[in-house]
């Protein structure tokens, strides 16, 4: 799996909200997308999935998944890629799930939509839950019966069950307690190593990004201002804005490892 973004711009009418010069992501790699709230990070995530057209945005440039151009791809083909090859988890995990459908039902519907047989689907769902350390009875529950951390892990499990190669995580830990954050990050790290899952990790929290990312891209007001290996960007930031962000990180001694 290889994701290549070149000269991408997403605009709402006159206003350009996202401008990416270059962005690369391969199997087993975590790319951290850093920036403050409102810097267009989520819009980029939706643009990769081709979901910004819905909101009335115009997309120019190139987003290639294994050589196939996603910008301008017809809806029917995009729908095959969504979920199956690229999965997304959202910031508020419990409200990301349909409140009147049981978790297991959602798994089944999604898997069957992507052509998996019923029996296989059930097996995959159970297997996926095991990988995120959730008990199988989670499938019988409704979203509001799950804690934030459980719901987020369930969302990641869905990506696993679908055998997605790229996971876009849009502020997945921002709504969670620090201890629960660590659990979710641990799950993502395992998947990165064991399943060779590519992860686009979007966050405003540099400390979290520093822990997990291989590569770091910094966005400021939608504009890509810096990118490079994570350690390098954090220790020797080139751009003034990056320097500000790094400086504002709370240092508890040995925050970067």
């Amino acid at each position: 799996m290889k994701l290549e973004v070149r000269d991408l711009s997403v605009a709402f009418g006159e206003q350009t909200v996202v401008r990416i010069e270059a962005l690369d992501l391969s199997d087993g790699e975590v790319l951290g997308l850093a920036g403050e709230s409102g810097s267009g990070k989520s819009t980029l995530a939706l643009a990769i999935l081709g979901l910004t057209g819905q909101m009335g945005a115009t997309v120019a440039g190139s987003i290639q998944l294994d050589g196939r151009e996603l910008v301008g791809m017809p809806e029917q083909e995009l729908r095959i890629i969504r979920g199956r090859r690229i999965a997304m988890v959202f910031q508020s995990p419990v409200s990301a799930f349909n409140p009147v459908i049981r978790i297991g039902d959602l798994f089944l519907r999604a898997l069957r939509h992507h052509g998996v047989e019923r029996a296989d689907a059930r097996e995959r769902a159970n297997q996926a839950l095991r990988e995120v350390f959730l008990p199988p009875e989670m499938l019988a529950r409704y979203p509001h019966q799950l804690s934030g951390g459980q719901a987020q892990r369930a969302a990641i499990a869905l990506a696993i069950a679908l055998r997605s190669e790229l996971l876009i995580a849009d502020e997945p830990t921002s709504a969670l307690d620090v201890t629960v954050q660590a659990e979710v990050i641990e799950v993502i790290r395992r998947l990165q190593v064991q399943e060779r899952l590519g992860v686009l990790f979007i966050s405003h929290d540099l400390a979290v990004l520093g822990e997990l990312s291989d590569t770091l891209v910094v966005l400021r007001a939608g504009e890509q201002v810096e990118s490079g290996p994570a350690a390098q960007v954090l220790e020797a930031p080139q751009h003034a804005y990056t320097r500000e962000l790094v400086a504002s990180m709370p240092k508890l001694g040995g925050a970067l490892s």
Partner: protein
Amino acid sequence: MARFLIRRTLLGLLVVAGVLALTFLIARVVPGDPAASWAGPHASPQQLAKARSALGLDKSAPAQIVDYFSGIVSGDWGTSIHTRRPVLDDLGTRLPPSIQLVVAGLILALVIGIPLGIVSAVWRGRLPDFFGRIVAVAGVSMPVFWLALLLQLLFFQRLHLLPVAGQYDPGLDDTNPLTTITNMTVVDAAITGNFAVLGSALEHLVLPAVVIAAYPAGLVARMVRGSLLETMGETHIRMVRALGFPEWQVYLRFALKPALNPVISILGLVFAYSLTNTFLVEAIFNWPGIGSYAADSVQSLDTPSIVGVALVVALLYVAANFIVDVVQASLDPRIRLR
């Protein structure tokens, strides 16, 4: 779930007690003399006195209240002045046809209103939405008695398509007499396998049901539109799109059910409102229901009947709301835990 039911039952009973109190006030705090209207305008003083004691008006106020409450509870709801029968008996015969009418109207309203609301939501801002909203607002703003007359003129008088009087063809009483069990023609005919009457009853039900359906259909359409649009903006819809589902499935398989929640919550209210609309409509269609009974009672200033009707409709309203709450709780898992 059990705790939820108990709480709701207790609240309901409290409201019922209040309803009884209010109807008592309406029944007794009447400018004018109930005894006089019972005995008639040419009553002699002795007849008036007899009427007064028969109606219990010569007792003290607290005694009257107690009498009233115990009467209601034990089944004595007074005697109707214009039918000379016990009010409760009258209600027993007249209520089922109206229930049948209102239920038919509500089913029709949902069948029309929900798709109308969906269309408005899906094509929001464009022509289908525009027309959908006009139709919905018209439904809600329609004077039902006028619509009844209009439909009668159009479908009976001019087009000769549908019947307008009574619950079924009276000629069938000779050929296929209907056994009365529930006093609801469609139900009775279906149970006893009397297909001739069943067909005629359904035919006669169409126009009145359409008239009753106008307001709820409009209301449901507006609510579905608003609720669906709101639901479509929520995160879980974004997630489902990101999973690759086509837009029509997003609307119908994932957004509709949560969006219908607020619609269900007003069904009780809509039921009661439609039941009172029958007051305006039944006389026009010669429908022997509680609506025409109420209209007749009003014409003859028959206070016991009016109060009896008010009481039974209010009680039905409380019951309907209770049922709606229970149904909602069983459909939406979040409500049970509140």
